[in-house]
């Protein structure tokens, strides 16, 4: 065994993937790792997260062959397509993406509410087939782990219309960080939108109060003498309250009524697009937004929502163009620059992202998430000093943000300020963020300041949380060597990796 040597920790290897929730990702990796061959997994995510996920799994599981079945349009069945891939690529993992495109035509016209939004007089061919073919999939594709990447509505469609196939799942995972951002975005949208002031207040109501409010609105709608104009507004409020509650399918039902009552007005279409977007029904979102744009293209939310739908479906350049249009119409709204920053980061333009986020912080200096994203962008530009200061702002405004502490510590780590890094990691831990990467970098930082005992403990924890992280085993062994515990140092080398031998 050679003497301990410093490992090259490129900043690119730093933990940064704000869209993938780490514990969820760790569970998915464990499942793919542990299962003996055939298995069915469902992952609820948007196409852009799917891309991220596939990339990351491919990086993290270099010894597994991961194939990708992308369905650009509706299909009748999967069996023959999978057979072709199985023969040519012999995959261990098969990502199936785009299945939702086969379901759209079976959705009831008018996009109904929860419970009746699929047609009962038909079943999508592809789901009907999967439901009857599950044994054949198991027997013919014994070595393949199927990972179905689907948006929210498609997952529900699976549960209801291919229940036997769905019943064989080994797990369902959701990478909903972006949805959270969306939801927050929609609330922000509603708050910004004129005539909707009472909704800001609604956001502060508790569950019972909101339900009371919903019932009140419902009662007003049901009044036989209610005027059409007022009815339309009531449906709008009803739907928006439901959106705040996260019940997007129900909200759509309300917006449908609103659209029927007033199809020439732009607002109903924007609201419905917002709900559809939150459900991951991106194509329908874009249709509604086109309609809204035809009615009144001066409404900035059209272009904002449009950019989000485009980003989610990986049309990143178009998304950028659309958000620029929104900013042109509403230059003083910080959140638009925030999203522009996010889109630029997705495109890999970190410097431009920083510029956009700088503007956002000037417009709205007290929003911690803007400072946080700015910090992330600076981190990716390797401007660590500035990143630290940006995270300091987050912590100043919202001290209990573990992610900020974690990323701040990451920046300190890259500045070789290891003591400060450890303090930051500890604070993130105290705030409840306990993920493999944190324990790992904390362990490495402790090694650097020669607190090897503590380093080993931290790396043990990293391995426990995320056994597939090969560098953790290596770092642990280096720390043990430094402590003179030679016997232990060899334990675990080769574990989970196979190609670590020396």
């Amino acid at each position, binding site marked *: 065994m050679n003497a301990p040597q410093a490992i090259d920790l490129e900043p690119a290897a730093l933990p940064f993937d704000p869209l993938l929730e780490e514990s969820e990702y760790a569970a998915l990796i464990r499942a793919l790792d542990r299962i003996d061959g055939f298995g069915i997994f469902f992952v609820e995510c948007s196409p852009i997260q799917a891309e991220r996920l596939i990339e990351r799994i491919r990086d993290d599981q270099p010894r597994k062959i991961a194939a990708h079945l992308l369905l650009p349009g509706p299909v009748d069945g999967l069996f023959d397509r999978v057979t072709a891939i199985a023969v040519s690529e012999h995959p261990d993992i098969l990502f199936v993406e785009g299945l939702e495109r086969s379901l759209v035509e079976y959705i009831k016209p008018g996009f109904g509410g929860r*419970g009746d939004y699929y047609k009962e007089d038909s079943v999508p061919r592809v789901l009907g087939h999967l439901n009857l073919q599950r044994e054949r999939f198991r027997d013919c594709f014994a070595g393949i782990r199927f990972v179905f990447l689907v948006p929210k509505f498609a997952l529900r469609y699976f549960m209801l219309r291919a229940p036997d196939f769905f019943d064989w799942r080994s797990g369902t995972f959701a990478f909903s960080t972006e949805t959270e951002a969306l939801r927050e975005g929609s609330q922000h949208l509603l708050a910004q939108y004129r005539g909707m002031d009472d909704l800001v207040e609604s956001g502060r109501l508790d569950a019972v109060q909101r339900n009371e409010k919903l019932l009140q609105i419902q009662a007003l709608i049901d009044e036989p003498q209610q005027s059409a104009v007022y009815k339309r507004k009531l449906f709008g409020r009803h739907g928006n309250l439901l959106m705040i509650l996260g019940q997007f399918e129900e909200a759509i039902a309300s917006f449908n009524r609103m659209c029927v009552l007033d199809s020439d007005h732009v607002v109903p279409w924007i609201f419905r697009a917002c709900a559809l977007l939150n459900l991951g029904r991106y194509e329908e979102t874009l249709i509604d937004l086109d309609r809204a744009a035809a009615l009144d293209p001066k409404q900035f939310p059209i272009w904002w929502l449009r950019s989000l739908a485009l980003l989610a479906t990986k049309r990143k350049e178009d998304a950028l163009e659309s958000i620029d249009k929104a900013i042109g119409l509403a230059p003083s709204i910080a959140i638009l620059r925030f999203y522009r920053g996010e889109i630029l980061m997705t495109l890999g333009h970190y410097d431009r992202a920083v510029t956009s986020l700088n503007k956002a912080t000037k417009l709205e200096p007290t929003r911690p998430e803007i400072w946080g994203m700015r910090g992330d962008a600076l981190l990716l530009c390797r401007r660590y000093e500035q990143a630290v200061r940006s995270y300091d702002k987050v912590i100043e405004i919202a001290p209990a943000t573990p992610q900020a502490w974690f990323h701040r510590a990451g920046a300190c780590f890259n500045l070789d300020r290891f003591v400060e890094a450890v303090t930051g990691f500890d604070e993130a831990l105290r705030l409840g963020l306990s993920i493999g990467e944190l324990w790992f970098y904390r362990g490495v930082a402790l090694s650097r300041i020669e607190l090897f005992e503590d380093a080993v403990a931290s790396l043990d924890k990293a391995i426990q949380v995320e056994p597939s992280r090969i560098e953790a085993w290596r770092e642990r062994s280096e720390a043990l060597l430094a402590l003179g515990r030679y016997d232990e140092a060899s334990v675990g080398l080769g574990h989970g990796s196979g190609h670590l031998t020396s």
Partner: protein
Amino acid sequence: MTNAELLKRFYNAFDPTRPLAADDEAYVDYQDVRGDRNILLEVGQGIILSDSPTCSLYAGHRGAGKSTELLRLIPHLEDNGFQVVYFPADAEDIDPEDARYTDILLACTSRLLQELSPDDDNPVMRWLKDRWQSLKGLTTSEVALDDLTIEVFSTITANLRAVPSIRHQVRKLVDPHTVTLLQALNELIDEANATQAGASQSDIVLIADNLDRIVPITDTDSGRTNHDEIFLDRSEQLKALHCHVVYTVPISMVYSSSGTHLVDSYGPVRVLPMVTVRKRAQGKRVPGEGRPHEPGIAGLRELIQRRIGKVRPDIGLDQVFEDLDTLDHLCLMSGGHLRNLILLLRTSVERAPHLPVPRLAMLRAISELRETYNRTIADDEWVKLAEVYSRQTITNTDGCRKLLFNRCILEYREMDDQQNVVTWYDIHPVIEDIPQFRRALEEMP
């Protein structure tokens, strides 16, 4: 074995995709906690004792252990001298979008031909030859009359799953001839019966599994489902085979308004109930009532222990799971539904970075399952669920049909003091903690 390897083995011990083989040591007999329901005796004895061909319907929630029980029935019947043709229907046989009786008849014919392997000169092939002029369009390749073999028949059934236009063509050609095809098939069965040594009336049993997997499709005009068309409108033909037949039927149909017609046509439908994990409330149930039924929970623990024992016989449940009370709670939350239990265990292990499986991982698994159920329930169904919860019965209406199909309502059976079998119903226990359900319960009159 290292910790990580053990976890991997445990993960794979809980596999939702494989029914147990007839002799698997992991099989646990739940007769006592399923209200004395034993498929070997009920269906098996009916077949063994009857002088004439029988036709039984068998239903159960998906994943309750139906196929496992049917697979155990096969050696039991074989030991009693029967020839069993087990046939799990697949998309190759049946078009899920548009399943018809003709497809089932063709599939049965094809399987019986394969299994009984008669000469090429047999009644079914003669039937085919007699109609070859009108039927030969059913194969894509040119087949001469003399070359007609059993494989040709398979080709025809295989065509059913192809493009809709061909499927319709096959049906149009075969539909007028189903009566004569059935006759020919019966002649074939009669010949096979006669050639078997010591033949009594019929020694052949056809088990058609998975027919309950046809997703219900409701005709918007008539309100009837594809299930009605197959199992009710064609009941005479389905019963007319000269061998014993066991068909699986969708459980939702048994409890719909069509259920009584089903019993009229076929006699009682045998339903495999859940393992009883909760005590039935006496009278109207107050929210929160329903204490664990210890024998049922113990039975499920036994299942877990056996599967773990197959990995490492010397390891106890307390070494695998951090907290055994939570494990009992997890058993309760499965509702006594075996595949749900397997899934809960698999998810727990998936969420466990190390052994023993932490308490939080088990709770997480339960909440994941709850979220799945939450999403399948439509707005107007919470009230129905609240009613089932407090009365522990169902009304024989179509309202409960979807909920049974989705397993939100589960069937249990137990013996009362006078040895009568009592059937009762409950909601799936994970639903109890969903806020919308609680609200519906509070608002009940």
